[in-house]
């Protein structure tokens, strides 16, 4: 059967989606499936965590340079993550962004959040100076981590308070 998307290559994977409206099937070739972030080689893991850790170990480059790069906030390394399956802090997501993006795609079949959007609360104005200092500190960290969207948001918050 031809791929429903490109109508060129043979389909290798069937995407079944079921909801209240019923069941729909989409037949995709490897390339079109990959474009949608669907891993055609992966079967549903029976032991999510074990499979996940194995995936981590397979996924991460074995070069020691990568493994020993550190998160500047909590000083965890990729090697620590490989050993425990847990990240040290939320800034690790920026520090190891490209490895994690691949891993998330592998584990979830997607790497982009589609759920609830969230805006953290503005710091209370009463606390004035310390809040500004904290925000400037976060801004400096965001820039260091090349989290530019976050940095822009913090810069706007600082402007408002100033």
């Amino acid at each position: 059967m031809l791929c429903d998307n490109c109508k060129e290559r043979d389909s290798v994977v069937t995407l079944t989606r079921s909801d209240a409206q019923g069941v729909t099937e989409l037949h995709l070739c490897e390339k079109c499936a990959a474009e949608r972030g669907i891993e055609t080689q992966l079967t549903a893991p029976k032991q999510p965590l074990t499979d996940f850790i194995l995936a981590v170990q397979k996924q991460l480059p074995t070069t020691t340079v990568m493994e020993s790069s550190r998160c500047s906030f909590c000083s965890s390394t990729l090697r620590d993550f490989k050993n425990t399956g847990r990240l040290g802090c939320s800034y690790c997501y920026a520090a190891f962004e490209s490895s994690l993006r691949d891993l998330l795609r592998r584990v979830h079949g997607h790497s982009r959040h589609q759920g609830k959007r969230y805006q953290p609360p503005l710091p209370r104005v009463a606390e004035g100076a310390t809040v500004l200092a904290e925000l400037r500190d976060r801004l400096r960290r965001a820039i260091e981590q090349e989290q530019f969207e976050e940095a822009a948001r913090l810069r706007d918050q600082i402007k408002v308070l100033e």
Partner: protein
Amino acid sequence: MLDLSLLPDGGVSWLDASGEHAGIVLSTRIRLARNLEGFAFPGRARDGERLRVLSLVREAVDSSPSMESHLLVRVDDLPPEDRLLLHERHLVSKELAGLDQQHPVRSGAAVFLGDGMGVMVNEEDHLRLQALRSGFALAEAFAAIERVDEELGARVPFAYHPEFGFLTSCPTNTGTGMRASVLIHLPGLVLTKEIGKTLNGLQQMGLTYRGLYGEGSEVVGNFFQISNQTTLGRSEEEIIDQLMYVLRTVISREEDARRVLLRDAGYIIEDKLWRAYGTLRYARSLSFDEAMNYLSGVRLAVGLKLISGLSVYTLNKLLIFSQSAHLAHAEGRPLTESEANLVRARYVRQLLADEAGLNG
């Protein structure tokens, strides 16, 4: 000693068998993993950081209308038997209770217990919000947890990334941070040997199953905890809708299997289930697994209307209160395994006799 009667709902309103399909679905649970911006995750944080997180969360919970009446339990101050009691009551995870050898109890480990709602602090993530409801009640549990999430998220800054969503210690929870699960009793599918097919089907739909106590636990008494496996790439509503749709199918398959059992093996099943009831009514020593298996039979007999006058609520209570830490708590002293078996059998006999007496 920990006094659970202080809880707003005694911590057991989810047992009252009031929800939809309560004979088959024991309970519905939804949990959200959240972390506070600016602190290392609990596994990496220093003692002082975890205590600071707890005090920030405490301020937020204290001013949150949905958590108006709540009890704060400092899990890190409790002796092991009380931590086990909370875990058996499904109020804290094994990790928070420090029962896992890999993860001894952490300083700052605590839980805020509200009405059908809990907020664990310093578990694998800074916050694990959970809503627990009786029966099949995904929509209701979701609405409740959404409220608490909104209220807390407006009071403390959660770690959030525009591309990856809510950031969690383990990337298996990143995105929505949501795990929605339903504790379901499937003896019909087990006895007709259809269960393997059903569970395989679940996995193909991106769902997963576990035992009575969640991650890493064995399936006992034909109880399965079915939940979504992935948390990224779909919205919370899509995850809930899919789970709801699949579970309706599972429930109707279980009902079909029960009809088949009665039709094709009526007297054999009837005999087996009455024997299970007889054992629970008269046994002098019962291990936990044994009690679970007989209770599963009796639960099925009640579902098939072979045994009348026995409520699902009583059966639910037996599941929770016949666990070791609960028995020791009721006796007011630690019990060896063989003592616990004797006490368990006595407790089960008593509760079933009371119920039989009440209903003639």
